[in-house]
């Protein structure tokens, strides 16, 4: 918008480029531009500043979701899911760190029994955070790790339990079935669990984020989304379409590789970062 004085076709073109380049996607971008055009027709937006404010409002409206679930039981079990490499393991560490800072006791269950050194990675994070990590030997059935892990956690009496799962592409039916089994097993061991199912999305991802959200939602139900790697140059605009279409609340953003690099999702700040 910099330096533009008039609201004209050229400005709308520029806006289209801005939004598409922020990964909002064609449908969402056209929808937003159309909403602006309607307002323009009704002479509701004379100058650029008002146009920008109106656009920001529309984007915030897309991003807004229901408030986070109230923590109503102890332990509160959180299952983290998502495709490969998006930041699940690191995000668990950040969430557990946040708990510790609030005086809560988190415990981590290493249910990624497939990937090389996945358990070791979570163990190192557990040591740094000060959270015990429950694991079994590599190749174990993840559902069994969750079952036994929950049993052990219940015996210890902790506030929060985080279950780290292996990355999996949403298109892999057998892996999605495995995830459903993990979900059922947790519920069997502890009615109501998992209380939260957090989908981790990588901000550098394009339109595939929608497919990911749809299929994970369909498989196990998702109660919240965490958008990672927003410390890069990617704007994560696909989160708007995801939030709008699935109704899943955007809970946090990851902004780095350290324990403190987690912030609550702020729709205003998110839209402002995209609009510049």
């Amino acid at each position, binding site marked *: 918008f910099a330096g533009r004085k008039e609201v004209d076709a050229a400005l709308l073109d520029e806006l289209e480029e801005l939004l598409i380049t922020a990964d909002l996607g064609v449908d969402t971008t056209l929808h937003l531009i159309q909403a602006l055009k309607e307002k323009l027709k009704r002479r509701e937006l004379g100058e650029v500043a008002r146009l920008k404010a109106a656009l920001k409002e529309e984007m915030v409206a897309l991003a807004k979701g229901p408030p986070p679930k109230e923590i109503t039981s102890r332990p509160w079990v959180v299952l983290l899911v998502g495709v490969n490499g998006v930041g699940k393991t690191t995000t668990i560490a950040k969430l557990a760190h946040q708990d510790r800072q609030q005086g809560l006791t988190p415990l981590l269950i290493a249910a990624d029994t497939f990937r090389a050194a996945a358990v070791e990675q979570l163990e190192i994070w557990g040591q740094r955070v000060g959270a015990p990590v429950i694991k079994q030997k590599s190749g174990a059935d993840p559902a069994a790790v969750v079952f036994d892990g929950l049993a052990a956690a219940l015996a210890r009496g902790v506030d929060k339990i985080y279950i780290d799962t292996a990355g999996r592409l949403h298109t892999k039916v057998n892996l999605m079935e495995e995830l459903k089994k993990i979900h059922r097993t947790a519920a069997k061991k502890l009615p109501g669990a998992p209380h939260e199912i957090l989908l981790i999305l990588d901000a550098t991802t394009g339109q*595939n984020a929608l497919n990911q959200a749809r299929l994970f939602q369909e498989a196990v139900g998702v109660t919240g989304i965490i958008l990672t*790697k927003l410390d890069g140059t990617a704007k994560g605009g696909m989160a708007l379409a995801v939030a709008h279409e699935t109704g899943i609340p955007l809970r946090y953003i990851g902004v780095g590789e350290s324990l403190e690099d987690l912030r609550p999702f702020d729709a205003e700040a998110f839209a402002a970062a995209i609009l510049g």
Partner: protein
Amino acid sequence: RLSDKLAAVFKKLKGRGILTEVQVDEALREVRLALLEADVNYKVTKAFIERIRQRAVGEEVLRSLTPAQQVIKIVHEELTQLLGGESPRLDLSGRPPVALMLVGLQGSGKTTTCAKLARRLKSQGRQPYLVPADVQRPAAIEQLKRLGADCGVEVYPTKAGQNPVDIAAAAMEAAYTAGYDTVILDTAGRLHIDGALMAELKAIREKVAPKEILLVADAMTGQDAVQVGESFHDLLKLTGVILTKMEGDARGGAALSMREVTGRPIKFLGVGEKLDALEPFHPDRLASRILG
């Protein structure tokens, strides 16, 4: 689907005689939308559409009995040509050991791909040596050690706290002494906007002069592919790109963006989590996938 959308565009014009530029414009608009939905970068898409506009308003479409198919054919040909064109083979020339360096954003699949390449080279009769130069990510060294063990390839014994540049140099020495002919360097994931870490990659490059500097990128990358490709290429002079997680349903438009901004060939595709899941790149197949 693009072919249906184009058929609809040209159906409206049936019986009106020859096509006009306006109608071809509408067809090009559909192509543009398809590319954007496939995650091809906005500017890259724009340039591509301009490039094919010449052919699209030419005789081959205007006189065609099946203009929709003709447009698809043109787009597919142009995409294939853009995506391919150069040798996708690894440059393993020169006095051994030859170094291959894998770089990229966090979580893109570098460590796994290092092991996949090692396994492939071993099956081709070479003597690869894996080098963990990521001392930042928890258990990264252990991860590569495990993968090395899985494919029977030796791994340099990196110790935590060592400097990646020193690790690379020492590993080349060790490889030379032990008679390995190919050193595969795994580096820590990093942001292209992290000046210090990008400088570290440059320092490694100066130290060991790799024959290949491969950008490992996630197939689901969106518009940011341009920034990432440009930054890594400007600083390091990449020799190629490897796209991972291609067995999923990401359309893979990022591949076109990266090819455009780096001018470098896509050499391999990662198509799974197991170490045998590495395929040579086929431009025509990716062209079809991007078009949807």
